[in-house]
């Protein structure tokens, strides 16, 4: 997919936005804490303005090219955040089993329909994949993974 977008303008605006986000909470900080971030904030604003000026005088590429399906891109982003939320709610193991399996199914469908029999065949593979990493982290590396409501 190709979007019409002046990338210089977009970068400049993003820089200004980011600087503004940090510019306002800077009040009330001691001299030693603010001296460095303030200098960088000023530089950020200058660079952003330069980019915006460049956007109107001699812009670089005016289009952005995204390979592949926009819908799958959006779904992937949503799935990642949903996974994070589910871990807090259901605990790592359950959340990962559900999201992992769902994601495998969703991605495999790109290549063609997935019959139920194939799905069933994948159950042990997914179980082993998750099990190995789960055990490696909890048993060998002694990491206490979130257990959600089951704690």
């Amino acid at each position, binding site marked *: 997919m190709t979007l019409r977008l002046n990338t210089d303008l977009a970068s400049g605006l993003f820089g200004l936005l980011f600087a503004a986000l940090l510019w306002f909470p800077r009040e009330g900080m001691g*001299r*030693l804490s603010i001296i460095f971030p303030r200098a960088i904030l000023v530089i950020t604003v200058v660079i952003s303005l330069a980019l915006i000026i460049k956007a109107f005088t001699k812009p670089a590429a005016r289009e952005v090219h995204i390979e592949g399906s926009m819908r799958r891109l959006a779904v992937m982003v949503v799935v990642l955040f949903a996974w994070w939320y589910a871990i*807090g*709610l259901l605990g790592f193991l359950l959340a990962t089993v559900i999201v992992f399996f769902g994601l495998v199914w969703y991605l495999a469908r790109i290549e063609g329909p997935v019959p139920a029999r194939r799905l069933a065949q994948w159950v042990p593979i997914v179980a082993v994949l998750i099990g190995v990493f789960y055990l490696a982290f909890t048993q060998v590396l*002694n990491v*206490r993974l979130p257990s959600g409501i089951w*704690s």
Partner: protein
Amino acid sequence: MKLATTRWVGSLSMLAALGMPGIAFAEYPEQPITYTIPFDPGGESDVTARFQEPHLEEILGVDVNVNHRPGGGGAVGWSEFQNNAEPTGYEMIGVNIPHIIAQPIMRENAGYETDNWKIVTFFHTTPNALIVPKDSPFESLDDLVQYAKENPQAVTLGGSGTFSANHLGALRLEREADIDVTYIPFTGTGPLPAAVQGGHVSGIFNYSMLGVQMQDNARVLAVASEERVPALPDVPTFKELGYDIVGGAYRGVAVPKDTPDEIVNKLEEAFAQTNQRIAEKQEPLGFVMTDITDEEVDKIIQQLKSAYQPILEEAKANQ
């Protein structure tokens, strides 16, 4: 959301515990205990926990898992612990003075309170030590004080962190000796040996351990303990030299506030025994082993709080 759920489960298990106290506590501990260190691996707190781990496991008869939750000079781990940990005795966290006193005073929202838990014990302290380079013109503390009186702000003292034990030590020296020095915070103890040996600062305020470690390359002018530190028998205390400065870092462990007394006592005992076993290894490094429990904990915290509060508030106003 998550918080509410854990609270709910927590109170449920409390109810269960109240219902059948005999069964619930008779066999504590029966599952692995999590021992959280709110600092990066490799620091003094972590090294101590590693020392303790095998002994605690032997004494308590269950696994003790040390894990790390670093960030914000300990504050991230502490705030999470006070919000989420359950009073079952299976979760404990390392706590340090003066951090837990200074951060809630100095920060708008440190996320935790100095008193909102049950401190099991403070198992050791590391007194502050004033260390200068080997080729420094300051042969004694008096030399340094003298020079600082004549040249305000010219003496630079490095140390680990801001509003840390080191920083508070330097501020107290300023008050006691009526001098004006410049304190330069470094991140952690790691960069300090280089700062001393390279002469980037006039001296450093750090812990007795570094004094022991750097015996060959530097000179320790004084230590801030009541009595001389066993590992540094030739170094005078500030008190001997006429400055009433006693302080440093205390390290200990805490459990959530409502943890039953039986469990706390059991842990106290385990840590006391562990201390005896590891003293042989830790004392030569410059640690001073202690066993501060129960009312003594509150006493020390109150005492240090009233000592540090005015200094901290003045420092905050000056910033």
